[in-house]
């Protein structure tokens, strides 16, 4: 079966510094996959390479079977790649509804329209509002994002990504910095994502990882240390040494 997302020998070097080293990775359609690793392992760099924020020094990136290695970010998004950011990256001066409607409108191919009022596309706004309802934040739809608590901003992050109707969704530490009372809501949202969407979650919270992921890839110093099922990873001595052990001692 064609992978939803695949990297082959993916590498990124900044001079002598190797931040991604020959990464072979495969995300199956509809998979729930986690990418873990200690701080500085290169997880976010890997996401940035996949999304096109960074260009690789070597290797290939395949999205639903087609090579997107040299394509710009916008083209990858059009082909079904969505992402959230480790640190909120929102349109803070706009309302929650406007944030999500930007993504919905662009995905519908209407973002370049000049001669029709935004409000004339009620269907776009209602689709965006529907997403907010699904994520339980419809009550703050009219508020400017900068006035929301951090946990709700994280949900807006996810809503924007879902507005693109991605076939591959990269969630970069979706619960980072969120109080546990609010992270529960984020976990529920992630658990309810459509089965057709392949999800790669980058996360430090091991409880979340083992509850969510069917497969886990461990990244250390820019290279894949091991990949396997959650049970295999939990039982792997190398993983305990470099990551889980580090948590226990640190």
């Amino acid at each position, binding site marked *: 079966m064609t992978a939803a997302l695949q990297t082959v020998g993916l590498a990124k070097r900044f001079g002598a510094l190797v931040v991604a080293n020959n990464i072979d990775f495969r995300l199956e359609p509809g998979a729930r996959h986690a990418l873990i690793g200690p701080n500085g392992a290169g997880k976010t760099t890997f996401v940035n390479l996949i*999304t096109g*924020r960074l260009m690789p020094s070597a290797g290939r990136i395949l999205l639903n079977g087609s090579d997107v290695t040299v394509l*710009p*970010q*916008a*083209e990858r*998004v*059009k082909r079904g790649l969505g*992402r959230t*950011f480790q640190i909120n*990256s*929102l*349109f*803070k*001066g*706009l*309302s929650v*509804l*406007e944030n999500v*409607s*930007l*993504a919905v*409108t*662009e*995905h519908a191919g*209407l*973002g*370049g*329209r*000049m*001669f*029709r*009022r*935004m*409000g*004339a*596309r*009620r269907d*776009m*706004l*209602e689709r965006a*509002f529907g997403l907010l309802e699904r994520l339980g934040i*419809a009550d703050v*739809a*009219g508020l400017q994002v900068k006035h929301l608590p951090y946990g709700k901003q994280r949900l807006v992050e996810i809503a*924007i990504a879902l*507005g*693109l109707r991605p076939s591959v969704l990269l969630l970069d530490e979706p619960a980072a910095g969120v109080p546990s009372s609010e992270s529960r809501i984020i976990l529920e949202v992630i658990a309810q994502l459509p089965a057709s969407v392949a999800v790669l979650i980058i996360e430090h919270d091991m409880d979340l990882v083992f509850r969510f992921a069917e497969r886990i890839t461990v990244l250390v110093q820019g290279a894949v240390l091991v990949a396997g099922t959650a049970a295999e990873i939990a039982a792997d001595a190398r993983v305990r040494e470099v990551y889980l052990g580090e948590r226990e001692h640190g």
Partner: protein
Amino acid sequence: MAADSPVAQLIRAHRLRPTELLPWLAAVVAYFVFASYLPLGSQILIMILFALSLDLVLGYAGIVTLGQAAFFGVGAYAAGIYSVHVTGEPISGLLVGAAAAAVVGLVSGAIILRTSGLTLLMLTLAVTSLLEAAANDATSITGGNDGLQGVAINPILGRFDFDLYGRTAYLYCLSILFLAWLFVRGLVHSPFGQTLVGIRENVVRMHSIGVPVRRRLLTSYTISAALAGIAGALLTQTTQFVGLTVLSFERSGEILIMLVLGGTGRLYGAFVGATVYMIAQDQLAEADPVFWDFWIGLLLVLIVLFARGGILGLGDRLVLRFRRR
């Protein structure tokens, strides 16, 4: 969907409000009440159009520029040269000014919009300086330092001659500004305009939702250049002269000050800022011919210190405070 739902509210926010007709009402009233000031009125209307063009790129798309005079000047010279060598027909002259400025905007934008921040600011300045130097050098085409001579404009639509009191010029400028406002208003409230706001707010996120950012910026830059070109062409047609000052750094700086004074990213900041600045300049120059620009500077310092968001921003805050009571 309920009438007061967020979706309904957002739809309402994009509709034309009655208050948006106030500037037009004021302009028509001014035509009758201040009949002896119509030449100044025409200058104000031209500067409003020029400031509107700047607001599109600076206020909406977040492109920081000190080079808007490049397009104003190209439009002014193109309309002037067209009237000298082809015909004095004014409407086609405006279109020639818009087209010439749009071409310069497209070509220069394709190069300089690859940069951002201070580099972009310096490059916009450099483009204007290059054009000013070229206009100074090409004496046989532009008249160089002496300015372009022999500009003669035919009656508008073959019927309305430019008169000594500036009535025709005022109504002509008002009509063109109205059409430009209709266009720009439609643009900033369209999905395209909203993506410009998104780019200004967070360019990284716009890339990640699939927006071809550079293409959108270049499109807005070109449209803005065309509008500035029309403003420049209007100046040429109403004064029947083009001098090097249309391409000067001062011209770029002055229009930026007008926009900041009124408030950026609001559409109507251009109307308020240009009007206040031009009237203040006129009155202060009369009262204090030597130090008038000191008072303008002081006004700007006060606005920046106490009214971030310009005069309209200050108005918003006052309205908010009044409503809270």
